């Protein structure tokens, strides 16, 4: 498993974090290539079902990132999202998902450095957690 | 043991977009194994389960007639998961067909009778099968007059347009093609709803059976017209739709009262339906 590289699904909000990723790219900043970006209109758009779907399809980690609280393009979408993800994260960990699989961040479109750094942190954390064992459906366990 | 759930592998031979809204496509399928084709003996009015591995199955009426050899044809409306995927499939791709399933129009009873076929929209598939079957030179003499009323919302939504035009030219079939409305100045057929055109053309009920397939609203307004024309309930035949899975009367979901639409149907006479709960 030494050459194992984690797969990480990142849901980035269109107005901030996606812009941050874009800027990081344009600025030629280096960050690990383990991240698959899905652009969403707002972090509030990310339904918990999406996160579970990512895990079920074999993601080793999921990262959701949006605008800083107060800067949401839709005024308050990320503030609702914050509560939603807090509860989701707690319940996932409560039911046995290891800490370090699910990540949240606030990154503005100007924070390219923060994006690259957070990406590194996320990848490191997921690497530490190892390949995902739970929620992945490999084959139905049926008769 | 012969497994009735196992589809025969088939290859898509061609795909034809039937209607201007691009929601209906006709798929011509050929069997990969000749034995399967030999075993696929069907009669107009039957249906089959089209199977796409990874997505599921859909029950679709067989649009070809058994007199057309070497292939089978299905016209599919794009509505759900399987049909959307099917619409994106290309000639040459592999899928599955399971059947033939269900009962068929009562050809032994129709022999020697006049047949009035009334169809609306994309419910014309097994009616096409029936018309081709009856017009086949080996069969034509077995039936009396054939009258067809077929309508769609607009000319672009009619199925099998070339064949319709060819049938129009023949003198052994009375074709009444109609559309609900059109702004096409070259439209040379009827304009009006199917029930109204049926009333206008007034096919005789003398020694005749009517086969009616179409959207519920069309059927609802056509039935009284047929009754007025003197068709008794036992000589009005229709084909029902129902959510199906197994297609062989085992999985239990498509029943109307005691009858499984997939196995005991889909073809029923109005008289049979009147004895069943109104739940379809």
């Amino acid at each position, binding site marked *: 498993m030494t050459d194992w590289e984690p797969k990480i699904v990142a849901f980035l909000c269109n107005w901030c974090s996606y812009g941050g990723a874009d800027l990081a790219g344009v600025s030629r900043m280096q960050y690990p290539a383990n991240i698959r970006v899905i652009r969403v209109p707002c972090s509030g758009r990310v339904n918990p079902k999406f996160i579970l779907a990512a895990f079920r399809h074999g993601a080793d980690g999921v990262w959701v990132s949006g605008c800083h609280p107060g800067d949401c393009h839709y005024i308050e979408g990320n503030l609702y999202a914050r509560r939603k993800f807090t509860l989701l994260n707690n319940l996932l960990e409560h039911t046995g998902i290891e800490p370090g699989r699910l990540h949240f961040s606030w990154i503005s479109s100007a924070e390219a450095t923060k994006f690259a750094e957070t990406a590194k942190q996320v990848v490191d954390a997921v690497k530490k957690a190892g390949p995902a064992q739970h929620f992945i459906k490999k084959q*139905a366990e*049926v008769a | 043991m012969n497994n009735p759930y196992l589809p025969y592998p088939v290859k898509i031979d061609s795909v034809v977009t039937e209607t201007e809204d691009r929601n209906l496509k006709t798929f011509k399928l050929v069997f990969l194994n000749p034995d399967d084709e030999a075993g696929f003996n069907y009669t107009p009015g039957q249906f089959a389960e089209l199977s796409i*591995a990874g997505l599921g199955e859909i029950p679709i009426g067989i649009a070809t007639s058994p007199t057309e050899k070497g292939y089978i044809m299905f016209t599919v409306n794009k509505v759900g998961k399987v049909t959307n995927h099917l619409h994106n499939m290309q000639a040459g791709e592999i899928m599955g067909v399971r059947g033939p399933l269900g009962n068929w129009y009562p050809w032994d009873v129709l022999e020697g009778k006049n047949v009035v076929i009334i169809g609306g929209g994309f419910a014309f598939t097994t009616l096409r099968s029936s018309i081709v079957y009856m017009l086949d030179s080996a069969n034509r003499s077995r039936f009396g007059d054939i009258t067809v009323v077929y309508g769609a919302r607009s000319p672009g939504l009619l199925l099998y347009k070339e064949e319709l035009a060819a049938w129009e030219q023949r003198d052994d079939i009375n074709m009444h093609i109609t559309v609900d409305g059109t702004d096409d100045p070259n439209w040379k057929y009827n304009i009006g709803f199917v029930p109204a055109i049926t009333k206008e053309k007034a096919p005789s009920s003398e020694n005749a059976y009517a086969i009616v397939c179409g959207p519920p609203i069309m059927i609802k307004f056509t039935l009284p017209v047929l009754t007025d024309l003197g068709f008794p309930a036992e000589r009005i035949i229709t084909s029902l739709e129902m959510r199906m*899975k197994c297609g062989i009367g085992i999985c239990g*979901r498509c029943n109307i009262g005691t009858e499984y639409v997939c196995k005991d149907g889909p073809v029923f006479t109005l008289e049979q339906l009147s*004895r*069943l709960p109104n739940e379809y």
Partner: protein
Amino acid sequence: MSETYVSKEKLPGIVEQLMGTHRVFGPILKGQYHQFALLEESADLDLAFRNTRLSPKALFHPHSERMFEFTLEKGNPDAGILKEVPKDYRSRIVLGIRPCDAYAFKLDDRNFITDQFKDPWWVQRRESTTLVGLACNDPCSTCFCTSAGSGPFDTSSLDVLLVDLGEGYLLQAVTHKGEQLMGDLAGGESVPEHCTEQAAALKQSAEAQLGIQFNLDPVKQKSMVELFDAPFWEDVQFSCINCGTCTFLCPTCWCFDIQDEVYQSRGERIRIWDSCMFPLFTLHGAGHNPRDQKLKRVRQRFMHKLKYYPDKYADGIACVGCGRCVQHCPVNIDIRQVARLMAESCVCPV
């Protein structure tokens, strides 16, 4: 048919013996409830049970069952072609099944085995199985097998009947298959005196305890449509929450769904228990749903069991009276009560 007697101490030995030649399934206490499962050792068998929470239908028609498998690999000539999957059809014995639950298989046979189509999995499991039933000496208050065409000592679907006589079991062969099984057994004793009489007395007392709880004869005369339109369904359906408990616990509810699942580049077609209680059961692709209301779904379940099935096959009802739905319906809808309502609505008021 022959009879043997097995004392209770000797039963484990007999079970061991059977396990040597067959896969033996029997009631095992799992957590709070008994459940039919493969015996790993004879001591797991627990015949001191009323009945299992789930009916043993899963032994023949599992909740989720792989039907076919396929590959979707690009370039593979078999891509998209469904293939059968191997199944274990080695001979097996179901030990301790209640007569009512076994009778259910006979009713289900009519659905799975028809002249035109035969369900291969059901057929092969049925053929490879010997049913050794355990007579019900002490039926529950919710049991009504005698009203449903079966009974506490019903042998109609069994190969062997076991009767618990306190110190031991009386084994009665019912079919040729059962006869063979008993012939192969070592350890049976000749039947002590009075045992046959004792079993007959137990049968009589169990049947008397059950009595006849409803009579559906009037329903036979009434037309399907009239019953369908009867007003009492409104009252019956109110409390229903449209969960699938009744259908999933029922030994004669066989309805299933077929689903395809894909895992990367391969997949499977699976069949899964379905329930007429679920709106999705009848929802057309185009959005129309013939059973879009709770009332229609509740009515379908009872009509199917008590009217459609008897009419279709010109025989008894599609219910064996095991009482599981009565016991475990979360809102206490009682099929016996519904049967009475159906029968009453058929009595001519004059």
